[in-house]
């Protein structure tokens, strides 16, 4: 088997795994494999496989993915700018709150136009989060990232505290201050962990409800997914509003 054929199989697998709803994957795996077999080995097969991958970018849920990608990009860039001391933390915090508000309003705006494919995609996500025993890879990565960042900052601050005490010849133990510093910096990764756990619990509840509605047909299930989307949208907007108010006050 040539390298082009191996590459074609790899592309086919990626394309199938990118397809949603998940229920369609089994069908497309076999169907696309049969389609590929109709092409001669080498470049034609590779071109057809690349076509499948391209076709997954035409799916409606790409818009949702793009939206999340932009949000993640803004989130990371503000964090990076804070890390290199280009902006201070209150501004980073404000940027995140605005991001949360935009997320909420976009969900509320998008919900009435969501197609059945979009709703199936949301249903797949709820099923994945509700049934998985482990936390999603993205969450584990962000917890690790924030934990490393927090450890580095806690070490740097502790070093500064000890240095300050020595410099000013202050007697006494800085242990309590260092513990407080460590706790403060551990808030971000711990907060993400708790939020991810809460999200999983909530998804389990939603999944139970959606599974119960499956017997009543597709329409009540889609109506429930739309209700969940509205709930997420309103919750995000309210949380952003409250956080913004607290930031302004304190």
């Amino acid at each position, binding site marked *: 088997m040539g390298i082009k054929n191996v590459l074609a199989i790899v592309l086919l697998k990626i394309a199938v795994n990118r397809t949603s709803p998940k229920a*369609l994957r089994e*069908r*497309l795996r*076999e*169907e*696309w*494999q*049969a*389609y590929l*077999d*109709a*092409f001669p080995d080498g470049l034609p097969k590779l*071109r*057809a496989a*690349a*076509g*499948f*991958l*391209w*076709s997954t970018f*035409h*799916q409606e849920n790409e818009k949702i993915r793009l939206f999340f990608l932009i949000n993640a990009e803004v989130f990371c860039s503000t964090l990076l700018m804070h890390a290199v001391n280009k902006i201070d933390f209150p501004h980073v915090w404000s940027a995140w709150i605005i991001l949360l508000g935009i997320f909420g309003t976009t969900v509320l705006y998008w919900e009435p136009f969501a*197609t*059945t*494919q979009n709703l199936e995609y949301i249903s797949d996500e709820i099923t994945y989060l509700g049934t998985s025993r482990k936390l999603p890879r993205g969450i584990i990565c962000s917890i690790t990232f924030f934990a490393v960042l927090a450890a580095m900052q806690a070490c740097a601050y502790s070093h500064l505290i000890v240095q300050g005490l020595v410099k000013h010849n202050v007697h006494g133990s800085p242990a309590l201050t260092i513990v407080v510093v460590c706790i403060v910096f551990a808030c971000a990764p711990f907060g993400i962990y708790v939020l991810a756990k809460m999200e999983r619990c909530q998804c389990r509840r939603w999944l139970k409800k959606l599974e119960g509605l499956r017997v009543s047909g597709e*329409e009540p299930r889609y109506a429930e997914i739309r209700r969940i989307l509205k709930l997420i949208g309103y919750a995000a907007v309210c949380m952003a509003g409250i956080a913004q108010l607290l930031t302004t006050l304190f």
Partner: protein
Amino acid sequence: MGNRKQPRLTLASLKVLRVFLENPRQQLAGVDIQKLSGVATGTLYPIVLRFESAGWLDSKWEDIDPKEVGRPRRRFYWLTADGFARANEAFSHLSSEVPAWA
């Protein structure tokens, strides 16, 4: 049926529809549609799946045992009665708007 979202009719989707209108009794596999319409693979499948979810096309697996034949089953598509009517309507509308298309 009334709740189903109607598919967008682009040039590529019209090419796909024309293949089915020209072969109304035939059940076509993806590769046949691609060869007859000239639409690229990457564009073809989203169109076919959209038409299917809108109820214009129907599909079924090839009636073989993959283990026996040693190859995966193909999926065949054909126009439904509703799809046939809607496709004809779309083409007649297009012909009246753009005479060169007729």
